[in-house]
């Protein structure tokens, strides 16, 4: 969680300084969901994300240097400087892509689950998406398809109450996203998305069922993004309402809550501070690496329109 927080705070500084120019959707305040979910699965499992996926990428084990290099548009980025913040990939740890078209990777997660089922593997697939994605038709199509074939998919809805600038209640008559899968035969649970242990426990339960062949599950993780939909500002894009809500959510900081739990278990403040310092050093090193890295060569513009499998000319 602290890696995600400190990495994103650093990216925010780089955005404000004009060094990062691609649109960045920060998940500061939501770190417990990525962390709790990805701790309950392995590198062999697949995870898919959306526009706000720095956290998913890092929690799944994606390389920090390749992330910073990517948002800075460098050739050493995880997508070679062709994707930026909204297109992250780390196939070596099961991230086959995160993309900003809303809900787009939900059916893709169903597909990777279908692949593992056809191959008789025990891997699960996780789809991370926001509350806005549940309004897309293919969310419902995907839940139905996954339930019908009892596919090992965990649908993780990070309900931060806002789709871009619009509050949940301006988009839904009822606040019951945890039940959105019920008509399709996908059981759902509402989870405190700012409690990393609660997220871990819920995911572990869902994963256990999925690996046993019991089919998909939907987890609605309630949370709040501290920054705006895109960029670094706190609430410029959505006005007064968020200004009123924010203090309450700042008090439920998932990292502060985890920290106080650890302290209660006897870990000292100085030990925890040392972790923060180590993480900060890692982030600094990644930024230095990215800054040293070359930009993609202009003559590479045409490379990769079509994929050439490794080993072929």
């Amino acid at each position: 969680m602290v890696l995600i927080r400190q990495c994103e705070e650093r990216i925010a500084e780089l955005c404000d300084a004009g060094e990062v120019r691609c649109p960045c959707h920060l998940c500061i305040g939501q770190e417990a969901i990525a962390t709790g979910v990805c701790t309950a699965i392995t590198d062999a499992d697949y995870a898919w994300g959306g526009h706000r996926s720095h956290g998913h990428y890092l929690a799944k084990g994606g390389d920090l240097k390749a992330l910073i290099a990517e948002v800075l548009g460098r050739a050493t980025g995880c997508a070679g400087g062709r994707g930026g913040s909204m297109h992250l990939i780390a196939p070596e740890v099961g991230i086959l892509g995160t993309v900003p078209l809303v809900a787009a990777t939900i059916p893709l997660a169903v597909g990777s689950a279908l692949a593992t089922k056809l191959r008789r593997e025990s891997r699960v697939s996780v789809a991370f998406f926001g509350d806005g994605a549940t309004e897309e038709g293919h969310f419902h199509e995907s839940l139905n398809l996954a339930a019908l074939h009892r596919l090992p998919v965990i649908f993780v809805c990070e309900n931060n109450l806002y789709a871009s600038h619009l509050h949940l209640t301006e988009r839904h008559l009822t606040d019951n996203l945890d039940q959105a899968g019920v008509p399709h035969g996908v059981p759902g649970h509402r989870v405190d998305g700012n409690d990393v242990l609660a997220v871990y426990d819920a995911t572990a339960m869902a994963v256990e069922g999925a690996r046993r062949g019991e089919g998909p599950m939907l987890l609605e993780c309630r949370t709040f993004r501290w920054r705006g939909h895109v960029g670094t500002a706190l609430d410029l894009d959505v006005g007064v309402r968020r200004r009123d809500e924010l203090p309450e959510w700042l008090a439920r900081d998932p990292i502060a809550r985890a920290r106080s739990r650890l302290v209660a278990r006897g870990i000292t403040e100085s030990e925890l501070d040392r972790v923060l310092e180590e993480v900060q050093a890692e982030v600094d090193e990644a930024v230095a690496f990215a800054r040293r890295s070359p930009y993609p060569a202009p003559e590479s513009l045409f490379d990769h329109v079509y994929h050439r499998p490794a080993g072929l000319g």
Partner: protein
Amino acid sequence: MSARTLSYAHAIREAHAQLLRSDERVFVLGQGVWSPWYAGTSLQDIDKEFGHERVIESPVAENATTGAAVGAALAGMRPIVFHSRMDFMLLAVDPIVNQAANWSYMFGGRIGVPIVIRAVINRGGEQAAQHSQAMHSWFMHVPGLKVVMPATPYDAKGLLIAAVDDGNPVLYVDDRWLYAEEGPVPAEMYRVPISAAAIRRAGRDVTIVAASYMAREAERAAAELADRDVDAEVIDLRSIKPWDRALVLESVEKTGRLVIADSGWTTAGIAAEIAATVAGEKLRSLKAPIARVCLPDVPAPMSRVLEHVYYRSAADITATALEVLKQ
């Protein structure tokens, strides 16, 4: 020894069967794959032969079905997604265009999407506007996609096998009006290279470029033209993205005249792209203006009287070629 012949539809079926038999990554997914209603004989009993686990009938959900195939392809499988009509496939444009086509490029070539999306053109018979559309040129516009349009049973089989092997998203467009056509088809597995056109008839007076059903009509037109002492060269594109520029340009350089026939609408279609390319590169070789034989820019009508004036055939190509030759 006479070559073995198969119908276009049976050639497609044979390609599916051989792919399913030889590669366990291959599976078929879509609406109507268990039913002759939707696939004609092109998938006849394929589910019975290979089982419902690998021949998956999908719910009425084009977007999620196609998206799931994209996800499975990214996870190492080789899916063939079946859309029994291209009209309905438009509900799956996000996974095809935004996702599959862009994936290799936007992730720096880290991973490819080895998916074949089968889009059937199924028109005529008073089916009207939403059961008749040939939208292949839309997809020709998109970087990262390949689009193939077989006109013969031989190509129907060889292009499907090549498409599954390709490792990139390939839109495989087959035409129900060709399903009963018979032609030589080798029994073994073979590949027709994507992006290579074929000269169906060599000639000196005019080049006729066409794809899919219209390539067959172009051959008929060339026979009619031969009766009038016109020696037409017929090029069957076979792939419309990437298309075989070199072969078309070379032919136009030789004949100096070009007619392009397509089963899609006129505006911004295949013919427009080819005409622009030829005008840009071989203007001085041209002895007459380039002519197009495409659908008029109106939705497909219902009544057979209107269908008769809407669809294009060999006679239209012949008449157009004769006009071009007068100039």
